[in-house]
């Protein structure tokens, strides 16, 4: 009897090892910008490759400007994005306009490139509701603050698309920390059970604020969590725009063909602090680790790749930088011109029809705010 139990245990350990070892990291461009996996190369035109580079350069500038605007007190809540450009922008680049994005709070770049005007992204940062009044035809929702809540909502959006017979997907983002939440499991499990066209991205940037991914889970990869939900999972080099693009594009294709959701783990790194509200990464990260990851920089390797192909040069880079600075300036000006948010606005957005008790309170605040 005892020996039988022992055999069973040994098998289950072996089974886990086998599953974990199957999860390899998809890479197409190495750190030198060389193609190391020709077979996985996505079908992108020269113009598309250039556009993707432009977006990454633009977004790096947007991050730098946002940080300095925050320090000047001209922006509010801000979660830095540098380091995650390939993970964020190449995944969005693989979408179509009709696809719906449910972002976490660091995922503002994706919704900007999906159509949210820049000045509204700034208003979101400043804590003004107009930042979240997504224009008609832009298929996104405002960034989620509760880690993981967007995962289960994405399953719902995707199921809705399936019921309507739409050829589109819902895509959502969280981080390595988010993959510990109950809603993460419920989201991938519900979408799997309904074969809903959803793409679940975990941007594993190694730290949930300060907690390293090793303390987050005993799982060797986050991609393998897909196995328990019975859906495909893949780990990709999140500093490699082409690998991210290829993985998302493939997941999208499967989803719109009725083959259900995919979990994609992108291995990435945020160079900056968790947010601009006083986080100090030197308390939990070493300079060595920072350096190691900066060598993998998504812009550096994609730039090298494009330069080798004769598709990128300094003038093009400078042009994007200048355009970004100009547009950011204009967007801040437009954000400044927005009327201040009032308590009466808040009250009127609570219900479609204002109940009597709120109507009384509305009158009180209307009086207060008119002074």
């Amino acid at each position, binding site marked *: 009897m005892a020996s039988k139990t022992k055999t069973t245990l040994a098998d289950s350990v072996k089974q886990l090892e086998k599953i974990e070892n199957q999860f390899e990291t998809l890479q197409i461009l190495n750190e030198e910008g060389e193609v190391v996996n020709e077979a996985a190369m996505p079908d992108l035109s020269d113009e598309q490759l250039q556009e993707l580079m432009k977006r990454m350069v633009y977004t790096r500038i947007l991050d730098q400007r946002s940080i300095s605007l925050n320090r000047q007190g001209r922006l509010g809540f801000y979660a830095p994005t540098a380091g995650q450009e390939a993970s964020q922008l190449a995944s969005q680049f693989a979408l179509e306009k009709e696809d719906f994005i449910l972002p976490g709070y660091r995922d503002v770049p994706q919704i900007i490139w999906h159509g949210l005007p820049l000045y509204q992204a700034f208003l979101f940062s400043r804590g003004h509701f107009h930042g979240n009044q997504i224009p008609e035809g832009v298929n996104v929702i405002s960034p989620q603050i509760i880690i993981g809540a967007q995962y289960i909502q994405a399953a*719902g*959006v995707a*199921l809705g698309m399936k019921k309507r017979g739409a050829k589109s997907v819902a895509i959502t983002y969280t981080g390595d920390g988010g993959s510990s939440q109950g*809603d993460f499991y419920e*989201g991938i*499990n*519900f979408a799997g059970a309904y074969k809903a066209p959803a793409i679940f991205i975990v941007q594993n940037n190694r730290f949930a604020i300060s907690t390293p991914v090793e303390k987050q889970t005993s799982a060797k990869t986050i991609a393998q969590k897909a196995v328990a939900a019975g859906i495909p999972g893949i780990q990709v080099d999140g500093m490699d725009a082409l690998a991210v693009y290829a993985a998302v594009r493939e997941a999208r294709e499967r989803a719109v063909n009725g083959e259900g959701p995919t979990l994609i783990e992108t291995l990435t790194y945020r160079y900056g602090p968790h947010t601009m509200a006083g986080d100090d990464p030197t308390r939990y990260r070493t300079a060595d680790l920072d350096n190691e990851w900066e060598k993998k920089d998504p812009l550096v390797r994609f730039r090298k790749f494009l330069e080798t192909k004769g598709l990128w040069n300094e003038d093009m880079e400078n042009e994007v930088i200048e355009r970004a600075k100009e547009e950011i300036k204009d967007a801040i000006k437009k954000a400044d011109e927005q009327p201040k948010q009032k308590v009466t606005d808040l009250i009127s957005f609570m219900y479609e029809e204002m109940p009597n*008790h709120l109507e009384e309170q509305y009158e009180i605040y209307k009086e207060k705010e008119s002074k």
Partner: protein
Amino acid sequence: MAQMTMIQAITDALRTELRNDPNVLVFGEDVGVNGGVFRATEGLQKEFSEDRVFDTPLAESGIGGLAIGLALQGYRPVPEIQFFGFVYEVMDAISGQMARMRYRSGGRYSSPVTIRSPFGGGVHTPEMHADSLEGLMAQQPGLKVVIPSTPYDAKGLLISAIRDNDPVIFLEHMKLYRSFRQEVPEEEYTIPLGKAEVKREGKDLTIVTYGAMVHESLKAAEELEKEGHSVEVIDLRTVMPFDIETIVASIEKTGRAIVVQEAQKQAGMASQIVAEINDRAILNLEAPVLRVAAPDTVFPFSQAETVWLPNYKDVIETAKKVLTF
């Protein structure tokens, strides 16, 4: 007109709205083939297909989040939480997400979700099934909370809740599901949310109540009548927003009031109702407004339930204190 129990009236309301609006979806744990653990969704999957009436995996937070996502795609979800004691698992989806959707998005998105759920004591459930948690819900701005006390009201209120463009928590008292039948029209009708009903007119005392306690209060009123006290009973039907106008109008007539609820004294709606009465009708009062409620413990194991739950005798006792003040 048909004689219906409350559970039949609820099924009838769901059927009516599934027929009226192709965007209405009914889902939850065991609501499909099984027709729900109380048979509230009996026959609906067969009639409307699995596309519109479907089972979910066993996860309340998932059910709540799924409803939000479906609403973002233009659907009108009517999820069931199998027992309301399980609501803690779905608190973020309700209070953190649905209730804030309209404000958060500046009116761009909304959550026209109606969460149906059984609750209420007296039927000897295991733990975490029977708790009266309407107060918890009512304290969250952005939600509406409805508790019917009769089959007729259940149908009309549920149709209104489903048609409402904001999230509604629709709480169904388990003891009332099959305790009596009532004539319920087969055609559709609505009862406006936020409007109370005067169940019994009187001139000496106002009893404000809701849910199963409506019936205890009516019984108490009958007993008090025999002793010469004329008692008015108001059934709130919607506890958030509640109909303070009807309450004040009654107190202007009676000058005395008590509030009766099944929830613990520290929970439920009674404290908020008393505070609103003080704000609006203090000069009409001849006596303090007292509360009848359960003691401030967690909901008891079933053997202690009978004494723990407020009943008509407790109502009479408190009513007399106010009547003789």
